[in-house]
């Protein structure tokens, strides 16, 4: 098989796994086995893709053999390949974890096929080079997430789902309208072709309006200030395995789209767009962390921290220097691993006490030392304590901020980092250090869990925690990869030339242009 066929694997493999899962819905062991094996294969294929992209540069696949910009193009550059690799890693960890944490009725309803559908949407969104195709992958991902969110139909889930569904549908409608306007303005939807056409677009006002429409559409998915309210209202309701994969991947698809749009398409009016992004980044950080401080339940606190950390990622994008963008990439790598892990650990805690409320849990340092260790590592990494991964991610971003002489955002980032540490120590001292309160319910069934069941719960958390430590210890190689990614992002011509090897296609008498004459 040639190298280009590997680009399709992160989309085709989840589809194939899903097909097999749907055809064997009746057998629960088969569901679990196929789900885990399929996720492992996906991880393998995404690792291959990342390796190939690192070796050969940008890989492009024209689906259906239609040449760009007419057909749908799949593009795997460094950023895309890193994102799909992380997606593969997370789905593998969550699939293993779900073996012991998702109940059989949910498995029978189709938990595993839905996870694969979600992954297909996520990987498709990371790999596509076409705006409308991006919309379609968004919707694939959203429909899967809707069903996963409501799976089981408990009160809180349904309530959270209404908010989640509504806000995501609005953002999809805005996205669709933006696609319509951008097609009317330029006559193309291929991102590389768009980048070329927007560069020399005569009317600056139109480009500004377009950039704002995309900012709202992607910003809602990424949960930036002031569009994040759906996230803390819904992320703590579904089963833990579901919230973990949501926390790790879904908002990051929004962030990825923001990065794509504001490094490739809308780079002509940096003064306006990127300054606005910087303001949004600062406000997102601060509101997120303040929201987290007011909370008293493990998963709610973590949900607000997702919001606050989206701010850091947008900050690097807004500064728009190679160093700051490298910080963003590093931060995304670090964040996906750590955040997923914290949700998984929070799930184990909730399973033990049947609640995540801090006042009703405690004593885990004594009763579950392994859990305490992995939580401590992840939480400290989230707060940015050296030598864990979060420290280097934040350091790079702050260096980027200082270099660009944007001191206000640097101060905000440092303060938010301190507050994050505060809120992590709150969970630590309440859940782990303080003796368990007298009325704490301890779930006996989780104590008597079989050895394999425990391995399924702890294995993924230990794996992810060691990756966090690993990123910290080997910060050099990760930093180099982030730097290379950032430089590739800033070199728009490389992307354009990879997709359109024959140069711009403006000379072709496009069917759709100049048709207003009667």
């Amino acid at each position, binding site marked *: 098989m040639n190298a280009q066929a590997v680009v399709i694997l992160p989309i085709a493999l989840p589809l194939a796994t899903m097909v097999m899962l749907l055809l064997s819905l009746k057998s629960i062991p088969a569901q679990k086995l196929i789900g885990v094996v399929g996720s492992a294969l996906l991880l393998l294929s995404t690792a291959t893709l990342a390796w190939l992209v690192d070796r050969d540069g940008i890989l492009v696949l024209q689906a259906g053999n239609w040449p760009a910009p007419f057909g749908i193009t799949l593009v795997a550059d460094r950023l895309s390949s890193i994102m799909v690799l992380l997606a593969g890693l997370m789905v593998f960890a969550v699939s293993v974890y779900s073996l012991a944490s998702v109940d059989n009725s949910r498995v029978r309803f189709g938990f595993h096929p839905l996870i694969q559908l979600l992954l297909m949407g996520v990987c498709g969104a990371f790999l596509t080079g076409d705006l*409308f195709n991006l*919309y*379609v992958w968004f*919707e694939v991902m*959203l*429909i899967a997430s*809707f*069903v996963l969110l*409501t799976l089981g*139909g408990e*009160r*809180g889930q*349904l*309530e*959270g*789902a*209404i*908010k989640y*569904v*509504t806000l995501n*549908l*609005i953002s*999809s*409608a*805005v996205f*669709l*309208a933006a*696609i*319509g*306007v951008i*097609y*009317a303005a330029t006559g193309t939807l291929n991102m590389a072709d768009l980048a070329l056409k927007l560069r020399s677009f005569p009317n600056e006002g139109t480009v500004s309006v377009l950039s704002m429409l995309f900012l709202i559409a992607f910003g809602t998915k990424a949960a930036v200030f002031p569009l994040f309210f759906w996230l*803390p*209202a*819904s992320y*703590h*309701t579904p089963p833990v395995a579901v919230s973990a994969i949501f926390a790790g991947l879904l908002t990051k698809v929004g962030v990825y789209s923001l990065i794509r749009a504001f490094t490739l398409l809308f780079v002509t009016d940096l003064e306006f767009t990127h300054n606005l992004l910087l303001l949004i980044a600062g406000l997102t950080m601060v509101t997120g962390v303040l*929201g987290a401080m*007011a*909370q008293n339940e493990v998963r*709610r606190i973590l949900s607000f921290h997702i919001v606050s950390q989206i701010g850091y990622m947008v900050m690097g994008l807004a500064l728009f220097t190679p160093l700051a963008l490298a910080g963003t990439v590093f931060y995304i790598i670090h964040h996906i691993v750590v955040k997923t892990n914290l949700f998984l650990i929070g799930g184990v805690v909730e399973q033990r006490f049947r609640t995540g409320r801090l006042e009703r849990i405690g004593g885990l340092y004594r009763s579950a030392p392994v859990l305490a260790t992995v939580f401590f590592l992840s939480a400290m990494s989230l707060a940015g304590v050296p030598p864990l991964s979060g420290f280097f991610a934040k350091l790079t971003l702050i260096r980027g901020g200082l270099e660009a002489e944007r001191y206000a955002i640097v101060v905000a980032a440092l303060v938010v980092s301190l507050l994050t540490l505060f809120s992590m120590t709150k969970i630590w001292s309440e859940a782990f250090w303080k003796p368990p309160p007298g009325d704490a319910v301890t779930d006996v069934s989780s104590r008597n869990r079989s050895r394999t069941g425990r391995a399924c719960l702890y294995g993924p958390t230990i794996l992810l925690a060691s990756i966090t430590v690993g990123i910290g210890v080997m910060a050099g190689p990760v930093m180099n990869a982030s730097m290379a990614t950032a430089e590739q992002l800033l070199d728009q011509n490389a992307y354009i030339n990879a997709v359109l090897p024959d140069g711009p296609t403006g000379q072709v*008498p496009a*069917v*759709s242009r*100049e*048709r*207003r*004459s009667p």
Partner: protein
Amino acid sequence: MDILLAITVGGLYAAGIYMMLRRNVVKLLIGLGLLSHAANLLLFTAGGLVRGRVPVVPDGGTWPLVIVADPLPQALILTAIVISFAVLAFALVLIYRTYQTLGTEDLDELKATDT
């Protein structure tokens, strides 16, 4: 024709947003439906309007000889309609289940998961 469609799109957006601001979940859903229709129609109008000229290339040629309707926005809308069909069907089941479980259709009472 463009102006008429533009007014319709604007009207649909206004109606959709008005419905979404009501407190009833069913009205919220109707509002979402109107909003997606408005976006589809916007996409259609933005693609340009040509009446009665099918985008078919004559035998032996490589380009259509006259200015024809652009098929791409129509394909996009078709896809978007299919997607919004699935999503709205899901949302319908969702609000029905919510009504059954929570016994209310007032959005203001759905705040247990808020903070």
